């Protein structure tokens, strides 16, 4: 301790309670103890009160039979599976709608953000109107509107709209042929993998060649050809292993095939259009953040407007865009919990059902919070990694 050691220069020794460091440690200890005591008090009382009421507690219920069904299950699930499994089904549904929503919202946001800056008056004003209307109406309301628009706009199963062969659209959802993987699928998958590796190698080679000699290579078209030809060849060699199961019209609904529920469609529409409006603003801000000189320099080099955007502006704008973009992705993921209002079986919806059937509110809410927290942290971690990759590399 400083107070104990004699000061060089024979300065007056301070009493220990006047030492700022001792005081700081003391204050922190007191606050910490208060917090711990507060938490302990709450936890203790919760446990005591639940015991007094005879409420069951603990996580054993996760292994019990759930006894209810879920409309959209991407993994095997029916009423004989456990509550734990039901949680997982809900989690996958949340993840599914979040991923599709994020991709679509990004596309919509970029298009609208660029459109707002367009020199075409009509395009710019349409984008303006979209942003201003959509981001100023509560999301829950939009979801309900989308749901009832989807429901009202689609025909009954018997009057299904046929979309090409074996695809139907009606009020029960969008029905698509479902691929059935037969024997020899592995060969086909290997061919796909081979094509992907070939394209990556090609890309690297073309880049090195371009940097060395300045000669461009038509990477896009060559890659497309490889991606189509190699898997097609593999498919034929393996003896066409993949067949399709077509949806069939039954008494009440179409059975078989892949189905996208109207709840899912409404969720994706609502979430991506709502979040897209915010992303549009972020993209616009990102582009405007690039000094005008960059545009002029690009022009002076003879680059077209499209090339300028693609090669000069966007890469620099991304550095401004990515951090707020991350927040929008997180928002979209968390907002997917509003699915409970329109019967989309997301994690929050399933957790609500489980909470009610078991009565274990504290446990279920704790699990729910932990899951949303980990989902958000995962997305955050990925976006931070991407941000680091895109950041300006100081040489």
């Amino acid at each position, binding site marked *: 301790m400083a107070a104990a050691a004699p000061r060089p220069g024979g300065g007056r020794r301070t009493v220990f309670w006047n030492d700022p460091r001792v005081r700081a440690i003391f204050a922190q200890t007191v606050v910490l103890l208060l917090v711990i005591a507060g938490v302990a*008090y*709450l936890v203790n*009382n*919760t446990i*005591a*009160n*639940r015991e*007094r*009421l*005879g*409420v*069951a507690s603990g996580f054993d219920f996760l292994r019990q039979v759930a*006894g*209810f*069904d*879920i*409309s959209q299950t991407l993994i095997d699930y029916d*009423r004989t599976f456990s509550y734990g499994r039901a949680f997982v089904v809900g989690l996958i549904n949340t993840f599914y709608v979040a991923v599709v929503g994020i991709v679509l919202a990004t596309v919509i946001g970029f298009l609208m953000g660029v459109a707002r800056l367009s020199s075409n008056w009509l395009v710019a004003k349409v984008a303006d109107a979209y942003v201003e209307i959509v981001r100023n109406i509560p999301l829950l309301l939009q979801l*309900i509107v989308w*749901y*009832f628009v989807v*429901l*009202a706009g689609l025909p*009954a199963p018997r009057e299904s709209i046929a979309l090409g062969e074996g695809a139907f659209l009606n*009020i*029960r959802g969008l029905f698509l042929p479902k691929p059935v993987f037969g024997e020899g699928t592995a060969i086909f998958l290997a061919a796909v993998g081979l094509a992907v590796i070939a394209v990556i190698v090609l890309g690297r080679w073309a880049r090195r060649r371009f940097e060395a000699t300045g000669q461009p290579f038509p990477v896009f078209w060559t890659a497309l050809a490889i991606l189509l030809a190699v898997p097609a060849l593999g498919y034929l060699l393996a003896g066409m292993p993949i067949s399709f199961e077509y949806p069939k019209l*039954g*008494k*009440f*609904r179409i*059975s078989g095939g892949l189905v996208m529920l*109207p*709840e899912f469609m409404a969720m994706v529409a609502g979430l991506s259009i709502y979040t897209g409006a915010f992303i549009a603003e972020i993209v616009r801000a990102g582009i405007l953040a690039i000094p005008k000189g960059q545009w002029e320099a690009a022009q002076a080099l003879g680059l077209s407007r499209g090339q300028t955007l693609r090669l000069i502006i966007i890469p620099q704008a991304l550095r401004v865009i990515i951090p707020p973009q991350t927040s929008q992705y997180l928002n979209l993921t968390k907002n997917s*919990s*509003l699915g*409970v*209002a*329109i*019967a989309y*079986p997301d994690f*929050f*919806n399933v957790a*609500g*059902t489980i*909470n*009610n*059937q*078991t*009565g274990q*509110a*504290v446990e*279920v*809410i704790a699990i729910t919070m932990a899951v949303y927290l980990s989902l958000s942290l995962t997305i955050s971690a990925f976006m931070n990694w991407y941000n680091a990759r895109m950041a300006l590399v100081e040489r």
Partner: protein
Amino acid sequence: MRLSTVFAAASVMALAAGGQALAGPTFDAVREKGFVQCGVNGSGLPGFASVDDKGEWSGLDIDLCKAVAAAVFGDASKVKYTPLTAKERFTALQSGEIDMLSRNTTWTLTRDTALGLDFVGVNYYDGQGFMVPKSLGVKSALELDGASVCVQTGTTTELNLADFFRANNMSYEPVVFETNDELIGAFQAGRCDVFTTDQSGLYSSRTKFENPDDFVVLPEVISKEPLGPVVRHGDNEWGDVVRWSLYAMIEAEEYGVTSENVDELKANSTNPTVRRLLGVEGEFGKALGLPADWAYQIIKQIGNYGESFERNLGENTPLKIKRGLNDLWTRGGLQYAMPFR
């Protein structure tokens, strides 16, 4: 909606913190604050609990809240209502946000035990049914293989539905809604072939449809749904008050005491049961911790069970529900009050 669940759960923790204060009987707390906080159906179930344009609540479940207030305070208006979804109701009761739950809630073993609640009676014997559009041409629930079914979350209905289809080896697609209103919207739009809930709920919801005559309730009843008031487990004095308020209404019907003749009977009746019920003889009020005229006040202000039923659900209402199981035991029904002795 979803926030309130979180709040309710958070308040379990928060109220648990002030736990020692809550540990005392609800009865004392109710007397002290001067009103009964009653949890009721928030999505509006005409006949059981619905609110009119003046903000006045009415319905069979509401009458029970009022009966308790009349018994405790001699004034049926001393009730405050907390509208709840099916999902929120138990947490609201566990956390002490409400004093009693009167929200067409099915009495089941799990709820009576593991949830820390006590059911104190049955004010409506119900069973789960199915409603379909007439145009579907379905005559029996056994023809519903492959149907998509609209159902409300957090209900016994959801589980019975799964059991029924499983037992009969049929498949179905559940479309699970949080509130009845959204469910009704989606069902009318044609999202589902079938709407399932307690039969009374089907009749009640149908009164809200644009074209009620296009829909028909199938004959099958696939479950027992005894609906009744709920209090917290271990809250015995308060549980007694709620239980005997309900019994007083049933007993009054059995002995022909109505809101019209109650004054006359109180003054002139020679029937010992009636005299005991109305507090002229005996000290039943005292035993319950209530004023001597508690049952008189219930009957005077709300009426007996039969009056309440007819007013809210009977032939002269849009619901037109017959007494059926809810008739008195003397007329072949199940409603039976324990003796006032």
